[in-house]
């Protein structure tokens, strides 16, 4: 296997925002134990000064390899403070890029984080009685809950 980048290793060794949010606005649950990766993304949504809904706080819990943990950590960093619409647009590629790349073999199966975030946002919307956002399929993405 190709080596992980330094960024991946940093995010894996000392992941940011690991944990859960009690009373989260929304939770996204992706992956499953058979595949070896499970990822739960918790978000707390609130409004900013202009009245836009933003990801005020975000945490993750992940069972998985270094790539799974590092991408979890990275998505929380990327999403925090973003509007829901912008957060929803974060792709697997964005996450990988922010980590200075992932080994090809890990590019998709262990890079569920953007799926997890989308699921969390929609969980929030649905709980609010609103329509979930449409999931524009990325190559190789796999939205599982």
């Amino acid at each position: 296997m190709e080596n992980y980048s330094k960024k991946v290793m940093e995010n894996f060794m000392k992941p940011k925002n690991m944990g859960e949010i009690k009373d989260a606005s929304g939770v996204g649950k992706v992956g499953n134990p058979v595949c070896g990766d499970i990822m739960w993304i918790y978000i707390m949504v609130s409004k900013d000064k202009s009245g836009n809904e933003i990801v005020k706080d975000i945490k993750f819990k992940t069972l998985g390899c270094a790539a799974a943990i590092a991408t979890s950590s990275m998505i929380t960093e990327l999403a925090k403070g973003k509007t829901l619409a912008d957060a929803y647009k974060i792709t697997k590629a964005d996450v990988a890029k922010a980590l200075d790349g992932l080994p090809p073999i890990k590019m998709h199966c262990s890079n569920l984080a953007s799926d997890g975030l989308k699921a969390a946002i929609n969980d929030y919307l649905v709980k609010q009685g609103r329509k979930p956002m449409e999931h524009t399929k990325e190559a190789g993405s796999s939205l599982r809950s």
Partner: protein
Amino acid sequence: MRTIYLDNAATTKLHPLVRKAMSECEEDGFGNSSSLHSAGRKAKEKLDLARETISKKVFAKNHKLIFTSGGTESNNFAIKGLALGSREKKHIVTTKIEHDCVLNTLGFLEKYGYKVTYLDVDKEGLVNLEALENAITKDTLLVSVIHGNNEIGTIQNLKEIGRIVHEKGSVFHTDACQSFTKQPIDMEKDNIDLLTINAHKIYGPKGVGALLVKEGLGLEPLLHGGGHEYGLRSGTVNVPGIVGFSKATEIIGEREIEHMASLRNQLVKGLKDIDDCWLNGPEVDSGKRLCNNANLTFMYAEGEAIVLYLDALGICVSTGSACSSNTLKPSHVLKAIGLKQEQSHGTIRFSIGIDNTTEEIKYTIDCVKGTIEKLRQMCPYKY
């Protein structure tokens, strides 16, 4: 930071005595062993001596020892060489827990019309002798069974298997890369026709192995050429490497085996305290397990993550077999002994070496406990 190397089943560090023997040979026996002159004859003498030493180690009497580039070549050569050399029978019996180099060689032959029976193993990884007997037909060219399993350490009963294979009139090959020098092997009493061994698992150099071939078995060479090694394996003979291999067969003795087994037992005992954790393969005191192997599953933690966290603490271990780490496929061996996929993800192989110490094992136990705890805190739920 000192490294605690617990991946000796993947490969070992060259032993200083082996290095010394090789250096002497590089100085004094560097010639081409096919050359007529003194430099060639010196190399030839060292080669002959190494061949004799290693042959004796496995009590080979009616076997040619052919040096190769390692376990993979020996296994490929044994299987393909026999298939091409005796072209009538088209059926091969093996197990579901062979090394990739046996399985993929057989997969290659399947493309060319060979039929392969992959025998199940029980929870401990042992082949059922009755099933074996039933699987062998008149068309069975070869039975290939791994001696000591590289992942879970299970040692098969060679003598019983060899007896059955010969009674049923087939040829018996065993891959003994993991067991050689750790477990007795007797080519005659165990009825072994083809034996694969290599050097880099026993503190010898990488790139050196051997296949022992029963006299009279007509193998087609895998490497054609200048006619070295009785015409069965061409290529300028790597005499310094072979001298190293020969020396390496002297490294592991009774004392080393006991030392490794006791550290392994210490490790397993220490780790079994952890909740939702178990040992895969035979019990440590069963006599059916390689002396240096411990393979444990830690639920709710993933293998690669465990390996890399331990690595950051200076501890080298492996997820399943090192050879497979290029793929994400869960181990076929763990599957064969009945682990579910979600269980195999959290499986770690520790393989002890002769230089490990009880302090290292103590430290390792602490680190593994800490690591598992840390990872389990990250795990979203128990399943």
